[in-house]
Structure formats: C-alpha cells, structure tokens
C-alpha cells in the first residue's frame, strides 16, 4: 500500500474515486481517438487527453504529497496547447509556419 502521509482517510477515498473517474475518462478519449471519423475529432480527443493527463498528474501529486509533479503538468499543458494549435493550423492551411 502507498504511504498516504498527511492524507486523511476521506481524502484518500476521494482520490481513489477521482482517479477511477479519470481512468474511465481517458479510456473514452482513447475510444474517440481511434474511432473519430474526421481529423478534427482526433485533434479534439488528443486535446482532451492531455488535459486529463494534467489532472491525473496533479492527483498523483496530492497522493504522493509532493509538488514535483507540477513541473511535469506545466510542461504537458504548454506543449499540449502548442501541439493542438500546430495540428489545427496544419489541417487548415497545410502549413504551420506561414
């Protein structure tokens, strides 16, 4: 079992429930990523996937009682936004840097 440190039993239970919800959410995003009929659907599901990944990393930071995962969350948030804009630009104009 993971050492919960300063986390009380209520917060620990809520963390487990939220992690389960986000796991289901990630599976649904993956379903849309594979199934998505158009390119825009896949871009949208990748966008949702990175936002949910940020949430999972932050939950893991609460669970481990550390702030080290915020750096990873920040990097994923910034690069994910740049990736979304670059993919959408490419679909729009077939060119990223004009």
């Amino acid at each position: 079992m993971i050492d919960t440190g300063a986390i009380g039993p209520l917060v620990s239970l809520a963390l487990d429930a939220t992690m389960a919800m986000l796991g289901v959410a990630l599976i649904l995003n993956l379903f849309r990523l594979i199934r998505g009929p158009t390119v825009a659907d896949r871009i949208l599901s990748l966008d949702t996937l990175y936002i949910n990944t940020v949430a999972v990393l932050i939950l893991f930071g609460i669970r481990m009682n550390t702030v080290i995962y915020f750096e990873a969350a920040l990097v994923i948030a910034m690069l994910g936004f740049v990736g979304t804009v670059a993919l959408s630009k490419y679909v729009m104009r077939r060119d990223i840097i004009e």
Partner: protein
Amino acid sequence: MSGASAIDILIAALLLIGGFFSLVGSIGLAKLSDFLKRLHGPTKATTLGVGGILLASIVHHSLLGDGLGLREILVTLFLFLTAPVSAHVMARAAMASDPAAKPPPVPSKRNED
C-alpha cells in the same frame, strides 16, 4: 487520523466535483453525434473539472504541505486561458477540412416573416 476535518471535507468535495466534470466532458466527447456538438463537452466540462482538481490541490498543498506554490496557479491560469483558444482553432480546422460541417447561416429577420 481522528475524524474528518473541514479541510479534508473541502478537498474531497473539490476532488469529486472535478472528477465528475472531467468524466462528463469525456462522455460527451465519446457519445455526441456531430463534431461541433462534441466540441462542447471537452472544452467546457473538462476544463472545469481540471479546475476543480487544481483547486483541491492548491488547498491541499497550501494548508497541509509546504506553502502556496506558484506553479499550480500557473497551470490553472494557463489551462483556463488556452482552452477557448484551442476550441476556436479546432472549430476552424473542422470547417476548413469539411465545408459541409459548417452550420447553416442564421436567417435574417427580414426574410423570416
């Protein structure tokens, strides 16, 4: 750990609200029928869900951990600023790749009656 304090209850409630909204956004992404309908789920509900989880994390780390950090506020600010921009860009990409996805123009009032 003797009982649940008010901070624990607050953190647990924020976590559950955040997880619920993330799940609702992803269900909307998976189940709705049209791309422009699907765009609504993730861009609003999921952003709110991540906001709730980040708020829970801010409360937890500032009250039980080692002080209020700049990075979690930065992540919150960044996600809330970039979500509408990326939604706008994705909607334009969808319309550029498939002109049939464009919704019909709103009829003017003069032609309506």
